[in-house]
């Protein structure tokens, strides 16, 4: 039996803290959503900082909102992604680095200062049952997470792990604050086969005018407000929906579908954001402006490969 090496007790639950990993794959045909870290890029860097497997389970903290964790043992952890005003007792913690927490110290997340979702990685990854191949919690589907039933973090929960703290001495090869600041502006989209059914004026507007992130935004999808897009296709027969799909319902306002999206749906699509763009959108706060930029599939894949190569 392996023994628990570290633990964080949940003193106060924020609005939305979830156990995440890469998500569930090979199960979409069962109606099971992908789930997993909405900003996979920051999630992976969090694990990299600790020398973990890049897909080790970590905590995704959205908004912060008073989430408070108390350490039951001394540990080295890593924080990455959004700056949610994290404090270790009274000391402010910036994302993008490892830090040491002593038994009895409290880690609290206040409110978003830059970005929306922070990732807290622990040595070796969080302990949680594998459900359909993943530890990711998807509340809507009652799957995964600490108890296997999809629940978000609750007061009384204890996060544990079995890995030993390694001092990797790793430093991020970029400034995480800058990566958050840039996050919203340009979202690369690979145009899909249905793009020809949108009017020329709509396409010109879609790629030349700014879009504003609506407050109807969650892990399922993010609504964008802006020019009203027209598509000659009305409702369609439901078909599979990829990550980042930019679907346009009859009201002409796009919805970008993220990790917890429905597996099939019936609205026409402009295309799909690249994986990196989907991760960046997941860091955007309501009201933030974004722009869509069309990118060729080959170029998107080259950028994606470059992103992945940076972890080596």
């Amino acid at each position, binding site marked *: 039996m392996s023994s628990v090496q570290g633990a964080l007790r949940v003193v106060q639950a924020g609005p939305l803290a979830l156990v995440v990993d890469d998500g569930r*794959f*090979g199960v979409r045909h069962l*109606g099971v959503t992908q789930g997993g870290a909405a900003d996979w890029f920051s999630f992976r860097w969090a694990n990299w900082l600790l020398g973990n497997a890049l897909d080790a389970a970590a905590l995704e903290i959205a908004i912060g909102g008073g989430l408070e964790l108390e350490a039951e043992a001394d540990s080295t952890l890593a924080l990455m992604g959004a700056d949610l005003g994290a404090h270790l007792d009274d000391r402010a913690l910036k994302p993008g680095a490892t830090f040491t927490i002593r038994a009895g110290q409290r880690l609290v997340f206040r409110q978003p200062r830059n970005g929306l979702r922070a990732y807290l990685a622990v040595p070796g990854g969080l302990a949680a049952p594998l459900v359909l191949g993943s530890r990711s919690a998807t509340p809507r589907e009652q799957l995964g997470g600490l108890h296997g039933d999809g629940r978000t973090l609750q007061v009384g929960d204890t996060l544990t792990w079995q890995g030993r703290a390694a001092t990797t001495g790793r430093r991020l090869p970029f400034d995480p604050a800058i990566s958050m600041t840039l996050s919203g502006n340009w979202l690369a989209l690979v145009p899909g086969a249905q793009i020809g059914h949108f009017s020329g004026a709509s396409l010109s507007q879609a790629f030349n005018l700014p879009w504003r992130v609506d407050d109807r935004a969650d892990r399922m999808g993010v609504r964008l407000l802006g020019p009203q897009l027209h598509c000659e296709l009305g409702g369609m*027969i439901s078909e599979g929906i990829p990550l980042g799909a930019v679907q346009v319902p009859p009201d002409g306002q796009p919805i970008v579908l993220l990790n917890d999206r429905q597996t099939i749906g019936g609205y026409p699509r402009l295309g799909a954001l690249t994986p990196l763009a989907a991760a960046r959108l997941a860091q955007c706060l309501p009201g933030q402006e974004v722009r869509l930029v069309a990118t060729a*599939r080959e170029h998107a894949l080259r950028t994606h490969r470059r992103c992945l190569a940076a972890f080596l």
Partner: protein
Amino acid sequence: MSAQIELTAMDVLMVRLFDAIDEANMGWIVAADRALRDAFGAELIDLVPSYTTLMLHYDALRVSHDEAIGRIRRVLERLEPADTELGQCHEVPVWYDLSVGPELTRVAERAGIAVDEVVRRHCGRDYYVFALGFAPGYSFMGLVEEGLATPRLKTPRRRVAAGSVGVADRQTAIYPLTSPGGWNILGRTAFPLFEHARRGEPLLRPGDRVRFKSISREEFVQQGGDTTALESAS
């Protein structure tokens, strides 16, 4: 069948086999599902069959776009429809009652028939499982006879109880777990769709057939059914 292969995302292709929902599609969809899984093996990330399409998410780090399209073309050239008679046939017991199926009256009024007749007709034919989606184990089935076809509720309910059996247009489905939804709810079943889906072994698969059977409240309770009334508030 004139298939098209469409770019859907950086590493996702849509294999479009048909333009309209038809029970006759199912043999082709089931066959294409099997053959595409074989053709991609471990390089397949996800394959999502639906009424007329199969969405194929492949590992773009290992398979090029051109290679993926080549594999799909070769599969389609050799495709023969599967014998859907070989799909499993399931009998799903349903307690049809206004307390758990408040739209029994809406469907009856639209059809100009009695509630009992709605139940008899809903149970009166085999439905194909067309697709799984929306929630783990949620099966889109059809086709419901035209007389019972009823559009979705204008305002979806925030909470539809697990096991609810609903109709939307000519489709019918069972809610595997409590979720929001806008279908016309006719009754409730204790058929354990979610429990099986969460283990990766769905009870219903595309190409299977389902026949609903009307049962009494007592039988429903014996099967472990929850008789709590469906909140009629949206």
